[in-house]
């Protein structure tokens, strides 16, 4: 092995491996052990149950939708916070982190109140024939809420670090604002935006607290997988709960791997 310049490789790698095993890998292995204890036929029956299938669709669909909304509007918020000076900027900046700090159940109750039949948003939307609370849209709203900080906080520092001269150079070469954004700024921001997107998505897939209130938890319609897992636990069916957990874990892992791959590709293209 080549001689290393930074000392402590063996020790730090050993500790990092031990730590991630203790915190992440061992609990997940226990989950798999429990789930697999069901045996092939039973396992398949639990995870391919129509109610479970419907919950996967809602969980992953709403999480992806929420993360996409955050990618777009979180990026916009980051842009405004970096590029413009305005009164109250610091307050807006602090507000962005609130979904991190708030107990998610509180957020869920507040959103249900707002979007309920008589809520500030719910009532006018209801008149337009759009029901949000107790529908998949409500689930998406809750998952958008909790995912906002991720995109903003990953894009913000990269945007702030972008050299203004790049835009000036593009302008002096005849590019208009849209061309400058699309061809110069957007490719530079994309890797960070994808990181934020992946984090927001991962957080939303596992979210439970804020969703249970606004979704109404109707099987086949507004029941997310974490809730289904919870109801299995309440019936003391730990093996089935673990099996559903395994499915979520595998899906999430594959999706995150894909996003990471995409990100790696964009970073490589960005020459950095």
């Amino acid at each position, binding site marked *: 092995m080549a001689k290393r310049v930074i000392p402590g490789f063996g020790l730090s790698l050993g500790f990092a491996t031990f730590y991630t095993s203790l915190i992440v890998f061992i609990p997940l292995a226990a989950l798999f052990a429990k789930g697999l204890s069901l045996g092939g036929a039973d396992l398949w029956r639990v995870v391919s149950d129509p109610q479970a299938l419907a919950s996967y669709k809602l969980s992953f669909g709403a999480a992806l939708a929420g993360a996409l909304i955050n990618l777009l509007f979180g990026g916009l918020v980051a842009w405004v916070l970096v590029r413009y000076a305005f009164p109250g900027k610091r307050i807006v900046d602090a507000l962005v982190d609130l979904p991190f700090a708030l107990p998610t159940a509180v957020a869920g109750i507040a959103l249900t109140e707002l979007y309920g039949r008589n809520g500030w948003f719910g009532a006018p939307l209801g008149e337009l024939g759009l029901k949000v609370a107790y529908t998949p849209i409500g689930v998406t709203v809750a998952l958008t809420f909790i995912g906002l900080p991720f995109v903003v906080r990953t894009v913000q520092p990269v945007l702030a670090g972008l*050299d203004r*001269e790049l835009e000036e150079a593009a302008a*002096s070469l005849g*590019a208009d604002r849209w*061309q400058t954004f699309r*061809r*110069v700024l957007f490719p530079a921001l994309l890797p960070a935006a994808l990181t934020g997107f992946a984090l927001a998505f991962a957080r939303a897939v596992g979210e439970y607290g804020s969703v249970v209130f606004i979704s109404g938890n109707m099987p086949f319609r507004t029941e997310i997988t974490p809730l289904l897992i919870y109801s299995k636990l309440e019936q003391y069916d730990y093996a089935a709960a673990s099996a559903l957990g395994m499915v979520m874990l595998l899906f999430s892992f594959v999706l995150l791997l894909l996003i990471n791959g995409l990100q790696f590709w964009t970073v490589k*293209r960005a*020459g950095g």
Partner: protein
Amino acid sequence: MSIEVRDLSKRFGAFQALDDVSLTFNSGELVALLGPSGCGKTTLLRIIAGLEYADTGAVLLAGEDATATHVRERGVGFVFQHYALFRHMTVFDNVAFGLSVRPRRLRPDKGDIARRVHRLLELVQLDWLADRYPDQLSGGQRQRIALARALAVEPRVLLLDEPFGALDARVRKDLRAWLRRLHDELHVTSVFVTHDQEEALEVADRVVVINQGRVEQVGTPQEIYNSPATPFVYGFIGDANRLSGQAAAGWADFHGLRVAAPEFGQSEPRPVTGYIRPHDIELKSEGGTGVAGRVESVAQVGAALRISVRVGESAPSLQVELPHHGGHWPFAVGQAVHARPRAGRVFAG
């Protein structure tokens, strides 16, 4: 294309970056804006480019008022000190950028763009780097790519902001000579900003010396060096001994050193400041006509001897430079000498 700026002024808060600047740059010229950092030279360049707007005054390109024209429409090529290359694009795409963002009806087709980009890359002698990314290039290569990118849009004017400022001394010297040859080939009106007097004097057709937002002197490198118009230019360009003294009847006297001062023909002495170049002082070991002094130190710098001479208790040490072609040094520390200025310049005050 000619450039003219009229009565430009620009403030940043309490800081006066430009103070009533008027200049003309002739078509096909290569002009240096020279001055210490913070003197306003970069601000002036950015206002000509349209990257900054002046508080008052006008910018004329080819005789037409372009003060309100956006940088996009000015047809200027701008080269930044830190290159500002697009990191996620290859060298080819960087150079092609200006052509590929043109509106469809003015955009050359793909083959035409490729031909033009390769011609430009050949011009900057980096054709073999077309598929690389900027991060894979050296500083000197990046700056040449930045230049090729600016030239791709066939600018009417080329503006360079400290183009060699971020490069090491060796590369600077090479690129400097290369830029001069390139300009002789292309003849596009070019203005470059620098704080390096050697760079300005060596490369430019004309030099504009700027200090504290004002133009101190405009002239050819020879004029700037041989007859500086103001005390600032004398101190800034080349080395000079700065001496205080008195002038009367056409002569100035600095601790016994006498310099012709025809502007001071009056009979009663007036306080003056004199500037004498180190190589304009003659040293004689004995029987000289000048003022007597003693050698304080001798050092050889390349093909010159730098000698420090004390000519009196109250006078500052005099810096003298003599050509030296090897062999033993003609002067030693502690030796008595006579110093006489061959030329010098006297300003009131």
